[in-house]
């Protein structure tokens, strides 16, 4: 019967695009905000 495609960790009902936080083919969950690079103002790169 194939897989239950709703159980692969993707929020298929999301009104937003999924790819910007796609965790990759092996990821059971989307990327978290701290995983996704963001073009923040350079002053924020304090390190």
């Amino acid at each position, binding site marked *: 019967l*194939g897989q239950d495609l709703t159980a*692969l960790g993707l929020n298929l009902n999301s009104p937003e695009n*999924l*790819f910007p936080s*796609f965790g990759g*083919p092996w990821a059971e969950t989307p990327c978290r905000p701290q995983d996704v690079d963001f073009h923040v103002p350079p002053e924020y790169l304090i390190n």
Partner: protein
Amino acid sequence: FEDPPDLYEKTEFLLREWVSIINSPNNKEPPSKAFSMFVHQMNVQGILKTDDLITRFFRLSTSMVVELSYRLLSEQTVTTSGQIRLKIYHTLDAYVKLIAMLVKHSGDTQNTQTKINLLNKVLGIIAGVLLQDHESHHSDFQQLPYHRIFIMLFLELNSADPVLEAFNFQILTAFCHTLHILRPAKSPGFAYSWLELISHRVFIGRLLQITPQQKGWGLYAQLLMDLFKFLAPFLRNAELAKPVTFMYKGTLRVLLILLHDFPEFLCDYHYGFCDVVPPNCIQMRNLILSAFPRNMRLPDPFTPNLKVDMLQEIAHAPRVSPNFASMIQPLTFKKDLDSYLKARAPVTFLSELRSNLQVSNEPGVRYNISLLNALVLYVGTQAISFIRGKGLSPNMSTIAHSAHMDIFQNLAVDLDTEGRYLFLNAIANQLRYPNSHTHYFSCTLLYLFHEANTEAIQEQITRVLLERLIVNRPHPWGLLITFIEMIKNPTYKFWNHEFVHCAPEIEKLFESVARSCM
């Protein structure tokens, strides 16, 4: 071969130097300042003197960072894995930084050709080192160093930078060509990283969304074809080994992202994908065929008295890539086909049809599936234009008694069970969202059911539809409306057939579908 005697040492010295510049914590110098000093050093060492020396430098450097990765990976234990990987990342990322800055600053700002030539060269060298390593290390091959170099270089060269933006499409093309060279069939030990690279959120975003006029779609489709071609032999048999299941589930995730975010991309390339996806991969194929344009509202297939031919989209021909007509080979066969379609001659065309499609007597691999798929779609599209040419629109009567339908009826009767299964699949693969192909092939399937001269054909048509309906969602809209029409419309006398009552669970299943459409 014949590396200049001291090139290895010079390269090692320079690489070590660069890695320490980039990674030194108190390095307050902006990378660009450090970079120009470093390029001066490369000049002093004579590395940049000739194209050949630059090539050798990159090959040696790539081999060095790869060897270092292998050495560190061999030392890692479960507890030290994190630190070891971090060490590897630091060296690889510094090397990537060097490549990115050399690409960005080679030639003057306007001269993007110099930059893209250098990028193609470096990507080619890395691919070459990978393939050689893949060959020599065999099952000890490690994906990590190449995975990291490719993804970090891709991210560096796709960061918001006006110089790079100016030739971003060439950058994407260079990466897609390299990933095509490294397709899983060529370097299966790199397959998991490869899938991760082509499905990375930035990679998908760049190729399918940001690049204007959908120019990245063809490149991306090619990579997905590479993936399906690699998986096909392993998916062809129902039992999947764990490594294959992992790859298959990963592929499903990527297809779900595409279905959700870029359905039009799947719509355009469905033909090419379904041509290489094995016929028994029912759900994956349904996933591809279920895509429909986001601006289209699909009427509920279970709507009572749904008038499909009244839908305005039903007259629109969908875009189909690649060009399936060119896949009808050999040319003599194509010529005979066209002349038969035109003048229903030569009559021998029909009797020779099966022999043109059959390639062996081995059960399970008897037919040229690609040729059959192309033939069915070509004849169908020709039929639509032919009917339109008479000022009519396709329906159960206008599709009948034509050269096109001769061919389809001949295939239904003349092919054996295996061949007819593939033939019916080729038709069912066109049952998608409301468009002229869906409509024509839905009518054709119902017509073949109605006109069948043996119950075996009707049973097989039912099987082909049923196996697509009983798998988990999604189900293509065209598949649902065809099946509903077949079981609802008394013209087809569906419920009178023996096979409908062949087993209680089958009968129950039909009834449950019948109930949901009243």
